[in-house]
């Protein structure tokens, strides 16, 4: 048994933020984590732009297709389909160790060092007061926490466009946004011309907030616009949890123990005993601490809490419904593309019906993903599709739409026994939108498509990947003031315990459509700050 003041379970965005806050508050912290890493690809990728690599590197297939050509395999669209070979470690061993029975729901889980945030799209969004209230998050502490997190990770965005209140809000010390690529710049220009009409329909367009440095910060470099965001982290310009944990590792009060999968906890007179499965040799390990912070993602936390505290309950679940629409921007067809750019979200489109009812559209240029991925979706022979797409690609954008989600009866998760699983169990998930939600989402998507047409981006078709593909999950252990089992107090404490806290999005009682990662980091900081202040 190893003893610590605080144990943080999970090294993702929430775990990294919670650990940093606890360390800064003077606690001795251990982070327990499965911690799987990419040990093959990162070192292979040369410091060149995507186009330079394509033109000069004979071994490029190793990281663009995978050493075993795994990325070239014919695969249907679904959660994780966008992961390139250097990012596939994010889902390594998940099927083996995190068993799931989820029907048509297709969530993405991770056992990676950095969790899902090891490959997140870096887009940030500040929740409005109404969104915070519906999510049961206290406004004043969250506003302060947003600023703390923004100062830690570095966020770029526009301080003066129409979308500001949805993206950076009132955050100070925001870095300037990276340059727009020519296709996005054309859409932004058209928006300025047709702004009154678009705004009249309830839509605004602007630059997204991104956890990407455009100026150096804390030893991390500014983006060099190599267009390699889908493959590597470009000198640390993109914030990943690994950046924060690397800094914490230098602190004498911090210990990181990778290679363990925490399975359950027991609390006895306020002292916590943790049981973990050692992924290296399959043995069980035990840890002790005074306070436990669960930050291993909504499903990871649900597994641990259900094993520790309950046998048969069903938990609620929230996940943004996501749709994407490939579009063509006619004015950009047959044009060249600049070598220096970035592949992240270029523009964000927001539709506000009420202050807590905001849907989000994100617009990417299809720049640094391989063309063959598009060829297999085309209704033409591969040769003709190649010729056609070479012409269309410079005007090809992908628009993704996220819808806000609230709790309904048909969205739930529970634990089942599974004798074939290394942990002896699995999660089961049922996730159904209500007919009214489906109708509403489709109506809203038609509205988004109409605005895109107004801007000169012509939607080709709407693709509905399986529910769960948005990779935004929340709501399994909802915040509440009553001391009820399987719910959280407002300070993140798991009801029925004295010293077990949950610092990920499990407590949110509503899931806004805005990107969730910044808010879950801010919430993790808020909860850890409360723990650090306890006697």
């Amino acid at each position, binding site marked *: 048994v190893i003893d610590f003041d605080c144990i943080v379970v999970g090294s993702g965005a929430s775990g990294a933020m919670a650990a940093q806050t606890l360390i800064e508050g003077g606690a001795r912290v251990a982070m327990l984590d499965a911690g799987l890493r990419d040990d093959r690809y990162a070192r292979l990728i040369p410091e060149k732009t995507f*186009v330079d690599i*394509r*033109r*000069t*590197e*004979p071994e*490029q*297939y190793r990281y*663009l*297709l995978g050493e*075993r*050509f*795994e*990325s*070239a*395999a*014919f695969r249907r669209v679904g959660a994780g389909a966008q992961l390139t070979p250097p990012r596939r470690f994010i889902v390594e061993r998940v099927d083996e160790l995190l068993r799931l029975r989820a029907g048509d729901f297709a969530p993405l889980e991770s056992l990676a060092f950095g969790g899902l945030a090891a490959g997140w799209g870096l887009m940030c969004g500040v929740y409005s007061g109404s969104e915070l209230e519906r999510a049961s998050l206290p406004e004043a502490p969250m506003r302060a926490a947003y600023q703390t997190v923004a100062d830690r990770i570095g966020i770029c965005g526009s301080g003066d466009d129409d979308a500001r209140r949805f993206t950076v809000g009132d955050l100070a010390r925001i870095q300037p946004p990276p340059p727009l690529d020519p296709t996005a710049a054309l859409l932004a220009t058209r928006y300025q011309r047709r702004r009154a009409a678009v705004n009249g329909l309830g839509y605004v367009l602007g630059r997204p907030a991104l956890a990407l440095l455009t100026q150096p910060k804390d030893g991390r470099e500014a983006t060099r616009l190599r267009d390699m965001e889908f493959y590597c982290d470009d000198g640390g310009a993109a914030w990943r949890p690994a950046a924060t944990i690397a800094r914490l590792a230098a602190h004498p009060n911090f210990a990181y123990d990778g290679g363990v999968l925490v399975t359950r906890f027991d609390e006895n007179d306020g002292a916590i005993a943790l049981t973990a499965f050692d992924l290296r040799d399959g043995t069980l390990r035990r840890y002790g601490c005074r306070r436990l912070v669960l930050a291993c993602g909504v499903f990871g936390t649900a597994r641990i809490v259900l094993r520790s505290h309950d046998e048969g309950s069903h938990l609620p679940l929230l996940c943004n419904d996501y749709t994407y629409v490939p579009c063509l921007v006619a004015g950009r*067809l*047959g*044009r*060249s*593309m600049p070598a220096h750019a970035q592949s992240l979200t270029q523009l964000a489109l927001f539709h506000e019906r009420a202050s807590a009812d905001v849907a989000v559209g994100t617009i990417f240029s299809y720049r640094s993903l*391989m*063309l*063959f991925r598009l*060829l*297999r979706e*085309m*209704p*033409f*022979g*591969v*040769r*003709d*599709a*190649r*010729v*056609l797409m*070479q*012409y269309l*690609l*410079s005007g090809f954008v992908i628009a993704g739409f996220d819808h806000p989600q609230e709790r309904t009866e048909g969205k739930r998760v529970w634990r089942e026994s599974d004798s074939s699983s290394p942990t002896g169990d699995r999660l089961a998930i049922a996730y159904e939108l209500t007919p009214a939600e489906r109708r509403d989402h489709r109506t809203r998507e038609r509205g988004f498509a109409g605005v895109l047409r107004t801007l000169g981006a012509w939607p080709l078709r709407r693709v509905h990947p399986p529910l769960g593909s948005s990779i935004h999950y929340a709501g399994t252990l909802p915040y509440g003031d009553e001391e009820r089992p399987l719910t959280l107090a407002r300070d993140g404490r798991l009801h029925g315990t004295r010293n077990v806290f949950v610092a990920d999005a499990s407590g949110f009682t509503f899931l806004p459509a805005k990107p969730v990662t910044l808010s879950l980091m801010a919430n993790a900081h808020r909860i850890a700050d409360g723990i650090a202040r306890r006697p």
Partner: protein
Amino acid sequence: MSSDEAASFGSYLLGREIDAASRAAYATAARELAYDATDRITEFALRRAWSIAPLDGALALVRPDAPLRKKLLLMAAVLETRPEYCDDFLPRERSTRDALAVAASVARAGVLAAFGLLLLPFVR
């Protein structure tokens, strides 16, 4: 077999012979992904190179995950990551005349696919 396949598929996709290294890379990739097995449509297409285009066009409409399509897409992926052929995949500046050529190739693709749809029942 895979090297012959690679030669046929490569020259179909790019309109010219591809190099030995690309053929070898395709053979390795096909082995890794267990794309070695073939079906009657692929065999037919490999024996009659003229039929690859119509069969590919028809399968894109009715059976996009057919073995022939999977192999052609794999060949495309392999060629796309060879510096020698990257200009066949990267976007390029095109004139209005080029746009007309692209439109003509799309029209030709439609005709070929229609022919392929007629051909498919006999090949199966």
